[in-house]
């Protein structure tokens, strides 16, 4: 069982990019250019870490492997869409990650005591909802890409293309507010800032348009879900049950 515990700890540690970014920002005083204090910035990146822990998705890789290995076939003849299995796996892993994320946060506060804050209950609940919506958007985006396995067999290559805008525009490396205003205006039309930037700003207490952000998250879910259903229905007609 030891290997499982180590694996779970590694999952949690693997999401510490926001802390590296915080270090780069504060050491170079980059936050001064966007008028955010060190404390608010560290709260933002800790929140980004939390949001990332509970919204990270890898369904495209799981589905691609299962397709190639022929494991999708038995799932397809069960009265449940196989993506529900992957969805349940992600939720189960999020629950497993939770204590490790708390431990990392505990150590973060020890080294940054000035960053300690307790969000009010309403904001906390909205942040949880927003993080879950972020997870849903990412899950749907990756599910749409995963369905391309029915045509290309290597859908993860397409996912890697999406990873670049996700990395830069989601707020994982820098808060979206730090982008030039002409760039920001179109970034907010994409789903990316609603993956990390919006929920992280909400949780950390930074200024953000709460209702606008939540509406955009729901809107993207309404766009992506029918798209997923359509591509799934077309893809299964192309399925050749390779590997089985």
């Amino acid at each position, binding site marked *: 069982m030891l290997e499982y515990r180590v694996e779970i700890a590694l999952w949690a540690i693997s999401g510490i990019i926001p802390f590296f970014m915080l270090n780069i920002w504060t050491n170079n005083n980059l936050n001064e250019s966007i008028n955010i204090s060190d404390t608010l910035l560290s709260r933002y990146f800790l929140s980004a870490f939390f949001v990332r822990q509970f919204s990270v998705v890898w369904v495209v890789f799981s589905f691609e492997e299962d397709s190639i290995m*022929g494991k999708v*076939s038995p799932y397809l*003849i069960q009265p*449940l869409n196989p993506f529900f299995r992957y969805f349940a796996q992600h939720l189960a892993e999020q629950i497993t990650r939770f204590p490790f994320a708390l431990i990392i946060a505990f150590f973060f506060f020890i080294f940054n005591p000035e960053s300690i804050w307790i969000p009010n209950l309403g904001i906390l609940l909205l942040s949880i909802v927003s993080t879950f919506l972020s997870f849903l958007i990412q899950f749907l985006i990756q599910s749409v890409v995963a369905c391309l396995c029915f045509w290309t067999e290597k859908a993860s290559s397409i996912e890697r293309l999406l990873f670049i805008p996700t990395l830069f525009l989601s707020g994982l490396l820098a808060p979206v507010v730090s982008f030039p205003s002409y760039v920001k205006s179109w970034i907010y039309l994409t789903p990316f800032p609603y993956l990390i930037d919006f929920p992280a700003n909400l949780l950390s207490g930074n200024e953000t348009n709460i209702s606008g952000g939540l509406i955009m998250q729901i809107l993207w879910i309404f766009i992506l879900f029918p798209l997923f259903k359509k591509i799934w229905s077309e893809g299964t007609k*192309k*399925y050749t049950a390779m590997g089985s």
Partner: protein
Amino acid sequence: MVQNIIDVKNLSKSFDISSKEPGLKGTIKHFFRRQTKSLKVIKDISFEIKEGEIVGFLGANGAGKTTILKMLCGLIYPSEGSIMVSGYLPFRRKENFLKNITLIMGQKQQLIWDLPPIESFYLNASIYDIDKFEAKKRIKKLSEMLEIDEELFIPVRKLSLGQRMKSELLAALIHEPNILFLDEPTLGLDINAQRNLRKFLQKYNKETNATICLTSHYMKDITSLCKRVICVHEGAISYDGKLDLLLKKLSPVKEILIVCRSEEDAIKLENCGFNVKNKIKNEITIIIENNSITSSLKTILNNFDIEDLFINEPPIDEVIGKVLIKKDYDI
């Protein structure tokens, strides 16, 4: 009258296959101008299967047996023709259709690798809307039939292939399907495990009147389970009928080993006009056609001093092997 549960008419399936020449030049050519061609793997086949029947699909590798099973259970979409299984179009994968069927593929697993099989059984029970009490009852019944007990609580990765296959079967049957599609279910199993699996399938068919469609390269699976076989050759049906009839047609003779009291008798018998396969001292093997076996034996027993006599069927693998390479059997 027993109803047809599977009805297939003029079914065809084509796949687009791309080909690539070897080497760097071939790779570059393949990248910019991919050559693809449509390959018809199933060619206009029709057949019906009645409720409760066990039907074996025979054919060489790549003949199209598995593709037929995959279309019957709704995994892949047919290119032409129609399929009705239990009153449903399989490919639509309606919930009630899926609750009625199961597909078991040898060496392919649906059990969760790191968890004991019991966890997968309860997961499947939830997927098929079976309550926990009922699921427990079914697991108990099936595990008794399959003779597995402690294995239910050991992680799948620690189980032997035979134990795993039994667990796979239990997972695939927990929703008590009426139609079983089995693609080489005994692949890789040892002789005892194969025999137990066959016994289980016979029992399951008898108790539930389930229809079973089976492919296997082990002739023992076919001969002990299937009265009817469908032979598939290059995507077309070359024979559909009783296994007995096929064997009689393909092998209209029997080998008789006769042990004479003396070598003189054996020599006399050798010169009597029978088709002699071989003779070693007082033992002689002759080949007699099935339709003249009674009269020939009567002549031998009345005219020669016989110590012992053995009637042998030709090896079934040899006989069936002929089916796999020929196109038509007019029976």
